[in-house]
């Protein structure tokens, strides 16, 4: 005889789960009782949203499925932003929530919320489990769904009585086999053939890579194709790190705050090889002006992404790694007439001028010094806003899974808990968070968690005393009317100290290097409050709705 709660914990172990992030409450007490002596590490966060973000950061850093746990009602609802964040970035996550007993379901009982209903649109799938005997299989299926195909979050809602029910005959858990879910991994041979022909003939080809490349572990394959056929590579925010930023064929980030080289190249290319990307509006700008003269090959594991925003000439549904291998296998080493590559190189050189203005402490300089101090395995996490874009622009990511950021949803408050998750996943690597003063205050309470678990996370606050990115838009598009975007100064070092975390404030440019060194050398967590130039902007920038090559503020202007 086993209780439902026991079956859950055993199910998690069967899936190889080692760490879960959670917060207790009445409806999950049976699970917490099981966890009391289970061989699983439960991390007590300070807010459920942080549990979801931490599980997400854990997943992005490790490639494994992250797990979070919350009680019914308010606990479950507090997971929602984290689940939505994972959904938008296709991160494998299993969220377990408690629910009121089945006899009270639908009665607006104390701490009841219809969490499966609430999360329909932000989960890959979800379950309300009514029979304890089903739990083992549901856990298996949930992990299978979360971690395969286009990855994503799955929620399991467990009514309290289901957790306490004694199951007499525990059914054997079989391999997940779902009639309605059979992802395609191998690319269709005919489409692969067509892609090969286009690549051979193209004069100005461009690879446009995104998070799907990281998810499928296809970084090596992308580089192999790029080098073999001399194709430059532009990366989305989510794809950074897949190709080393300092590789000669790397054009850096494409899109609203992308590089000149990437944005001009996509405008002029005659073949766009899109891999694991979704033609997001932050990348394409006005979509008709995105790769206007190019034939488009689109490789994605999710058929629904292909042709969604932009017509595609060669659709290839499949796993990026396998498809790229199939394509590369059919190609011989190819030289490109130097016209295209030298043009691209000229854009790269022209765009490489130093960003930032002369006076004050420049955010770009902070990021570049971080880059100089950290090795290629260090994991850099960001919050959302200018801090995120500066990091994406000025840090040189060289390996997949070393860059963790909320791309699709752009969730402020994501970064700090995600950096905790990343640190749990990679205890031996340096994990550094770049934050804004606004974003950091959205989950600042997790300083408590960081201290409790001795997580040596380094927090670098680029403090402009503004909700900087919004202020930037107000400056550029709302006549400098800074409506509710100024933040009052906060003694971040004092707050960190109050939680038991070391900290330091930095106000002069020449203090940045030593302060970063002190932070990275410190044994434990560290909070650096860096007072950057208040009105620094992120440039270049493509205004929303403009064409991708219509950038303003080029070269730090």
């Amino acid at each position, binding site marked *: 005889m086993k209780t439902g709660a026991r079956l859950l914990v055993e199910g998690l172990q069967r899936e190889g789960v080692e760490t879960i992030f959670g917060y207790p409450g009445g409806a999950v007490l049976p699970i917490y009782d099981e966890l009391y002596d289970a061989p699983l590490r439960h991390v007590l966060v300070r807010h459920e949203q942080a549990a979801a973000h931490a599980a997400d950061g854990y997943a992005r850093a490790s490639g494994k499925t992250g797990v979070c746990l919350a009680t019914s009602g308010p606990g479950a609802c507090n997971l929602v932003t984290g689940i939505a964040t994972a959904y938008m970035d296709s991160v494998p996550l299993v969220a377990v929530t408690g629910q009121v007993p089945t006899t009270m379901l639908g009665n607006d009982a104390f701490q009841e919320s219809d969490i*499966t*209903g609430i999360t*329909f*649109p932000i989960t*890959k*799938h979800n379950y*309300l489990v009514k029979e304890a005997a089903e739990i083992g299989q549901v856990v298996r299926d949930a992990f299978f*769904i979360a971690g395969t195909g286009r990855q994503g979050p799955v929620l399991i809602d467990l009514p309290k009585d289901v957790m306490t029910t004694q199951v007499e005959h525990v059914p054997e858990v079989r391999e997940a086999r*779902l*009639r*309605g*879910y059979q992802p395609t991994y191998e690319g269709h041979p005919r489409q692969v053939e067509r892609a090969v022909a286009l690549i051979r003939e193209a004069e100005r080809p461009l690879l446009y890579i995104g998070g799907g490349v990281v998810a499928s572990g296809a970084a090596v394959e992308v580089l192999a194709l790029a080098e073999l056929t001399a194709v430059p590579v532009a990366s989305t925010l989510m794809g950074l790190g897949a190709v080393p930023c300092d590789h000669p064929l790397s054009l850096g980030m494409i899109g609203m705050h992308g590089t000149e080289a990437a944005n001009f190249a996509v405008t002029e290319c005659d073949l766009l090889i899109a891999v694991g990307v979704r033609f997001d509006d932050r990348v394409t700008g006005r979509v008709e002006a995105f790769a206007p003269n190019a034939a488009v090959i689109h490789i994605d594991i*999710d*058929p*629904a992404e292909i*042709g*969604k925003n932009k017509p595609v000439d060669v659709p290839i549904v499949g796993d990026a790694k396998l498809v790229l291998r199939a394509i590369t296998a059919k190609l011989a080493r190819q030289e490109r007439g130097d016209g295209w590559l030298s043009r691209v190189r000229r854009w790269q050189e022209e765009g490489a001028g130093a960003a930032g203005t002369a006076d004050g402490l420049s955010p770009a300089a902070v990021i570049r010094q971080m880059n100089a101090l950290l090795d290629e395995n260090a994991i850099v996490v960001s919050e959302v806003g200018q801090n995120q874009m500066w990091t994406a622009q000025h840090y040189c990511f060289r390996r997949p899974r070393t860059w963790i950021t909320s791309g699709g949803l752009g969730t402020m408050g994501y970064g700090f808990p995600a950096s905790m998750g990343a640190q749990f996943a990679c205890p031996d690597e340096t994990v550094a968070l770049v934050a804004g003063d606004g974003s950091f205050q959205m989950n600042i309470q997790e300083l408590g968690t960081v201290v409790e678990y001795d997580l040596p996370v380094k927090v670098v606050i680029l403090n402009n005393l503004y909700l900087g990115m919004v202020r930037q838009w107000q400056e550029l598009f709302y006549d400098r009317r800074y409506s509710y975007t100024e933040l009052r100064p906060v003694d971040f070092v004092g707050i960190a100290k109050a939680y038991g975390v070391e900290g330091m404030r930095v106000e002069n440019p020449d203090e940045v290097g030593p302060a970063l060194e002190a932070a990275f050398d410190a044994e434990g967590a560290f909070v650096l409050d860096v007072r950057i130039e208040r009105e620094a902007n992120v440039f270049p920038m493509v205004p929303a709705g403009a064409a991708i090559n219509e950038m303003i503020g080029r070269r730090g202007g």
Partner: protein
Amino acid sequence: MRPHTLHVLVENRAGVLSRVAGLFSRRGFNIESLAVGTCEEPGMSRMTIVVLGDDARIEQVKKQLNKLIDVIKVSDITEQSTVDRELALIKVAAEPGEGRAEVMQVAGIFRAQIIDVGPKSVILLVAGDSEKIDALERLLRQYGIKEFVRTGKIALMRGMKGGR
């Protein structure tokens, strides 16, 4: 923009209908008609969904439907040779006498059945394609329609390729 008829084979599970319906509303599609019931496969249901849209949008909706774990198969049967029917129940004001006789006559022309007779009204049952039901409704309006319900369209492909 034209009506497309989709067959959606789904697992017969709680919540499937709201997943499917929610997907349509979330992406701004208007469902013209939706009918669900069990089908020839044990444990599955078949939905017949009529939705308006241009081909590209419909393509996207089909792909999104296919992503739902509980959806087993989506087929667009718009271009296929199909038989389709809707069922309607219509309660018409019909006092005994001439009015009722006229209503019964109209019913006869449309092969509608009178399935209930009350002191001041009768209930008609009619099956047919949407146009036929629309036409009957229009005709009966002059007598006074008290209540009107229709099922939404169900459809099957003709001949050998029918079923899955």
